[in-house]
């Protein structure tokens, strides 16, 4: 099993969610996060006073997937979330040691 963490632009969330649903991803965890990468921050101006914020809002997706599905998940997120510009985000893949469904106690791929 793999644990996939993707940081994407917030406006891409719905599109990515639909695309992942279509390839059989049954669940994910979504959070609003802040950070910076090559895009750095942005400048805000209030009555001429400039403030540069160095953290930008992004959305973080966390998905647990079977070894078979994982490459497809990564590919789908990459293609759907891309706008061909800096700040599109990153995808990280980790090995996942175990998964347990709390309601039934099932473990492994059947718990996904």
């Amino acid at each position, binding site marked *: 099993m793999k644990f996939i963490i993707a940081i994407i632009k917030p406006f891409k969330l719905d599109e990515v969610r639909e695309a992942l649903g279509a390839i059989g991803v049954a669940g994910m965890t979504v959070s609003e996060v802040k950070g910076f990468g090559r895009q750095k921050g942005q400048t*805000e*101006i*209030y*009555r*001429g*006073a400039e*403030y540069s914020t160095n953290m930008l809002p992004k959305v973080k997706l966390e998905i647990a997937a079977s070894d078979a599905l994982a490459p497809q998940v990564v590919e789908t997120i990459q293609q759907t979330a891309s706008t061909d510009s800096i700040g599109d985000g990153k995808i990280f893949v980790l090995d996942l040691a175990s998964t347990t469904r709390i309601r039934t106690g099932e473990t492994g791929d059947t718990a996904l």
Partner: protein
Amino acid sequence: MIRKIVNSAAALGASMFAATAAWAQDAAEAVGTPIAAATTEAAAAVPNPGNNAWMMTSTVLVLLMILPGLALFYGGLTRSKNMLSTMTQIGATAALAMMIWVMWGYGLAFGPEGNQYISWGKFFLAGITPDSTAATFTDEVISEYVFVSFQMTFAAITSALVLGAVVERMKFSAVMVFMTVWLTIVYFPIAHLVWEARGVFFVMGALDFAGGTVVHINAGVSALVAALMLGKRRGYPTEPMPPHSMTLTMVGTGLLWVGWFGFNAGSALEANGSAALAMINTFVATASAGLVWMLTERVMGHKGSALGLCSGIIAGLVAVTPAAGNSGPFGAIVLGAVASVVCYFAVSKLKPALGYDDSLDAFGIHGIGGMVGAIGTAIVFSPMFGGPGGDDFVIGDQLVTQALAVLATIAISAIGTAIAITIAKLVTGLRVSHEVEVEGLDIGEHGERAYN
């Protein structure tokens, strides 16, 4: 208040003083008895219910400008830790001004006894009954209690406006002491000079329909002096201090604009054509100024911003205040646009260059916008630009009168504020402690948080 009696002034003469004396006489005959004097002899006159109803409405519209209008406008611009402090200082200052107004303010500004500099009498509203009346600018009258209330809201909003320069660091107790002294030695005398029939600038024919000098230049200059004496906020200008809620600032801006119709159109003191002119001007000058501020931002290479729209709207409202019933609609549009550009540079270039911390730009918008409006009124009043001035109106002469009124207002505001701030400093101390300023005045001064 309206100054249409100026129509006949310019024709009258070589010497300004000869002219004004003769004209004051003319005015008294043509326009009816001056406000204060009228209140006793007009006992037989009965207020027109329509006018009375409009003035009651206008009065509460001005209250709407303060609470919640100005409180939200200013509150949104401060940091969230000072939201309640900002709104509470505004609300309490307005309430304090109301108390002082009925005790000695009305007497000092509009009392029956007095001279060209100050008046007295009717302290604690002595002798005023539901039957008492105050003259308008025609032979109509309105109930004196309504006039007292209407003028009371002007004292309240002017003092609240000053706070824009001192929020986020001034002690609540210091604000209360400062305002008590400031209203007494600055606001009431200036209101008398400009609006009372015996006042120096009223007699000179200074055009100030709804309070460009008394309210805006006065508040703006007082704000600047108070900010200079108080010092900068800790961390200004290196630490970011962006507005915590542009949403609330926008809501406050809308409430201010709506309430301003009471302020401007109500200053006709009747529901008549003059009020109608003030109404249309309060729409179009404001709309023009809001758009022009955003255009100026674009020209300067920035994005047109929400705060730009709000700031332009306020700048336009300020500028059209003295011109409301003294300008044609297209004169008002130009006046609003000019004020917007000038105020833009005042707050985004002049303030950083000079380095003072006028936190919410009370001087940059009310002071500067007020001056543009007061001087500009001499131009847009001319029939040449569609204004209501007579054919014999001379722009040059009026410019001199307007400039004198502006300069005198600046001088009285600056000196009086310096005295009032000094007294507050001696009585309570001016600034909150370092710890309270860093933690926020909401907790430190009021023991509450705006958002939980």
